[in-house]
């Protein structure tokens, strides 16, 4: 395990999104941004257990998973700017990041839709027989969609190599779990499909990494089918947009404090040599500055570009 790499990813995601939030009022990013700030440990922990050729699927709050899987930062920021140099050539925006080279499937704005697509991808990987797996990220809201249960059932039935990862931040937009779930026993619900399920309540990135690695090892060996991780986490910013919303009345800032206290970037960073940490921080800052420059300097698609990519071939 490479603590420096884990720290770098945690810090990178945080700083990229802080920079997005900083620049957002300039209106250069005309894209609805759903920031992962506070939730980085889940995607970083899971992706650190993946091989480069494993596949990641993420929903619209997908900046974290995209960067954790090694997605191109320049192409991501350019996509937020709507530029031709973006990862989706300016046709997707923040909610539809994609990275084919890094095996990152495209994001979707419709909650739950990416889950069966991840399962279908896993079906193809199973046929390939190279031990590849898919990590499918989604939020607590997605587990209320029927397609989630349909997907669990099919994946379990065919023993497909999918690690389902629920980032449970307790809110679907502004509606808390108490108004949406009849019981909190999500892992128990999933286990009834014969899928091993684990709950991580404290956001510990190393524990998430460990559980993901165990599940993936067993899938690669063909010893088991899909597995499930429910990771409690917390969205520090508003549902969509750059700011905070603790004064909006639907949640209290007191909820945030324990998550800030165990924020994983400083926890892991404290285990590194100060000089190494400083070097990584500096690299991150320069990569971010370069990415925003890249986005600024890219061309907007225009005119007849509108009609590109409606149909393939």
């Amino acid at each position, binding site marked *: 395990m490479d603590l420096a790499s884990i720290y770098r990813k945690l810090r990178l995601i945080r700083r990229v999104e802080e920079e997005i939030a900083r620049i957002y009022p300039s209106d250069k990013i005309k894209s609805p941004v759903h920031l992962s700030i506070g939730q980085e440990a889940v995607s970083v922990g899971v992706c650190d257990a993946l091989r480069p050729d494993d596949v990641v699927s993420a929903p619209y709050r997908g900046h974290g998973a995209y960067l954790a899987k090694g997605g191109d930062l320049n192409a991501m920021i350019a996509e937020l700017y709507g530029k031709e140099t973006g990862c989706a050539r300016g046709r997707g925006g923040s909610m539809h990041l994609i990275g084919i080279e890094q095996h990152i499937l495209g994001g*979707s704005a419709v909650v739950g839709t990416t889950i069966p697509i991840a399962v*279908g991808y896993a079906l193809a*990987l199973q046929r390939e027989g190279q031990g590849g797996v898919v990590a499918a990220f989604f939020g607590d809201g997605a587990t209320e969609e029927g*397609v989630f249960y*349909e*997907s669990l*059932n*099919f994946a379990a039935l065919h023993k497909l190599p999918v690690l389902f990862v629920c980032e449970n931040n307790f809110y679907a937009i502004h509606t808390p779990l108490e108004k949406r779930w009849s019981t909190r026993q999500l892992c128990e619900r999933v286990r009834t499909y014969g899928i091993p399920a684990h709950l991580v309540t404290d956001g510990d990135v190393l524990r998430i990494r460990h559980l993901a690695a165990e599940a993936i090892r067993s899938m690669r060996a063909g010893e088991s089918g899909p597995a499930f991780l429910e990771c409690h986490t917390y969205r520090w910013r508003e549902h969509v947009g750059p700011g905070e919303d603790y004064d909006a009345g639907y949640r209290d800032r007191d909820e945030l404090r324990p998550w800030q206290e165990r924020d994983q970037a400083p926890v892991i960073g404290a285990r590194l040599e100060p000089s190494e940490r400083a070097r990584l921080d500096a690299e991150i800052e320069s990569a971010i500055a370069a990415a925003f420059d890249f986005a600024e300097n890219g061309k907007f698609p225009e005119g007849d570009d509108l009609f590109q990519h409606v*149909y393939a071939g």
Partner: protein
Amino acid sequence: MSTPAKEFRLLRYVDALREAVAQEMERDPRVFVFGLDVDDHKGIQGSTLGLREKFGAERVFNTPLSEDAMTGVAIGAAMAGLRPIHVHIRMDFLLLCMNQLVNIAAKAHYMYGGAARVPLVVRSIIGKSWGQGAQHSQGLHAMFMHVPGLKVVAPSNAYDAKGCLIAAIRDDNPVIFVEHRLLYPTEAYVPQGLFTVDFGRARVCRKGDDITLVGVSNMVMECLRAQELLAEAGVHAEVIDPISLAPLDIDTILESANRTGRLLVVDNAWTNCGASAEIVARVSESPRALRGIQTARLGFAPTTCPPSPLLEQEFYPNPVKIAAKVYEMVRPGEARWAPDAERAVLAYQLQFRGPF
């Protein structure tokens, strides 16, 4: 010397579908077939029979009743490089797939900037008669025509069924493949080998100068019967089969309508916002349309489909209604005329027995 592809023989529509899939599966190991009941003893009214025995359970397999997720699975597998054929024994069930088809399959190539492709075929069968009723009879093709990124084809005969299905499997885009249950036993001369029928090219099935008659799916058959009966009454209809609805070959229809001055579109669906509305609108708004083309449409009655036989007869267009409408358009001043109803009954309707 003829190539194998040119060796024609009479083949039923249902067998043409099965042959197309079998030959493509033979050619391309990425092709697989799945859906509810594709591998049971009835094999989707015979159209998938024997495929599992030939290609194995990994390439031909049944699914849970989870149309939403199974459509997503098909899309994911397609993005990963496989070429799925997802089969639905009735088109009505596609309503359970709409989110995946409209929000992902249609848009993936565009919204991911060309980085993803969804080479997916969705086979769907429209039912009719024997009490199919409200939810086994719907022709929902216009819903899919509405959405950029999807292709929609509705072959009316065994030749086009095979050629279109092969073309659909080879297409890098999601294709909604519309089949009509009553067409399954109908026969046509079909090449033995592999061939494709290109999308976006309509076929003029019968030449005529008095009116342009466009039929969709099985309505091509009904229009052809109406054409024969009209010819006996001295009215000569040109019958056009668009074959593919998206893309739509409006030029062939427009050229014909410009020549005949009259256009009647008959759809196996409701007319409201339907394929017939689209065809008439595109002809009307074309800068190349000559002035004064008379247009009309026939389709399902604007009701839910009833199972009871007399109501069902009222619900659907048929050769009598088509012929009467044509006659009225071509000879507006004359007394109304309709062919003998007995002579307008189509064999495929008489042959059909249930239960499904």
